[in-house]
Each structure stands twice: as C-alpha cells, then as structure tokens.
C-alpha cells in the first residue's frame, strides 16, 4: 500500500536505519522464568533496598 502523500518527500525524524534490539534474546534465555526475573528487578529497584552501586 503506498504511503500517504503527506509522508513523501519530507525530512524524516528517525535519521538512520534502526538496528534490531539485541537484548531481547536474553529475556527468553534458559534460567529463571521471565516472571521470576521481573520480580527480582522490581525488588532490586524498590526504594529502601536499591541496587548495589559499583561506581
């Protein structure tokens, strides 16, 4: 389907070819389930606990 005329011949806003997000594969990698991992992250970023800072 052709693009609408309003989209043709204009300056774009993205600027460069987009690369596929590479980290997606990690979400489905073997190990703890994504649900469990999400819970871990939620706990880690909860105020009062916080991530351990290494810098």
């Amino acid at each position, binding site marked *: 389907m052709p693009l609408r005329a309003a989209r043709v011949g204009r300056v774009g806003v*993205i600027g460069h070819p987009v690369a596929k997000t590479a980290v997606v594969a990690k979400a489905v990698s073997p190990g703890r389930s994504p649900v469990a991992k999400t819970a871990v992250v939620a706990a880690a970023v909860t105020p009062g606990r916080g991530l351990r800072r290494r810098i």
Partner: protein
Amino acid sequence: MTNTPFDQLGPVDYLVVEFPAGQSNFTGEMAEELLKLIDAGTIRLIDVLILQKNEDGSVDATELSDIDELGDLQAVEAELAELLAEDDVAHLAAAMEPGSVAGVLIWENLWAAPFASAARRAGGQLIANGRIPIQAIIASIEADDAALAAS
C-alpha cells in the same frame, strides 16, 4: 495532534513491535492497553503505522485509517499527526525480518512534559537520555548475585 508549543512538548519516543510470520495473536488487548495510557493522560499518540516486510525486502505501510474496524481506536486515529516520513519507514523496517509485520508507534510522554519544561526554564538542556533494557538490569543483578555466591 494538538498544537502544543515546542517548549511544553514532552519527550517523544518510538517503538517497533515485530510479529514474526504466523506468530501474531491479535485479541484487541494491545489497543485496550494503549487506550488506557492515552485516557490516563500518560501519553499522547502522535503517529502509528503498520509495516509489512515482504520476502524480497520491500515494505508495505498501512495507515491506521486503512483498517476497517478500528473500534475505540477510531477517535485516536483522528488526532494523529503524520510525523513519520517515507525515509523513516525504510529506516524502521531495517530492523524487521522478511515476512514479518510490525506496529510502529510514536508518542509523546505527557507525564514528563511539566518536568522537562521546568528544566528548560531553569536553563537546563538535555545532553543525554536513553532507556536501560530490563534485560540489562537483570544481567547486572544476576552478575552481582553470582559474584556474591562465589565469594
């Protein structure tokens, strides 16, 4: 799209959600969740395109208005701006696999606009921003856990 002055515009993001060939399962849930964000004033939807990347690498773009039954998205469609240009379609489709379909969303983060305006009024200028993938946070935590367990 409303005529928001540029100095009151919130950060604008985009995403491309790819549905590999034969793996889509559209139930209306995505539209429902999107509408919730709009209705809550969290985001303003600026542009939507549906891209189909053919096996030969060519890309077909479908406007939201080209879809027969939009349901509750009909009202949203009327407010969209055609921000994405032809070049953008090619750039965004570069991430897609041949044979896949992808939804492209552009939105303004309304929730961030007041803070961004205040920062600009205070003389601040944005010099860096980005998103930390949740997977990167998971990897960091897991590395810490592994280091702790080994010590």
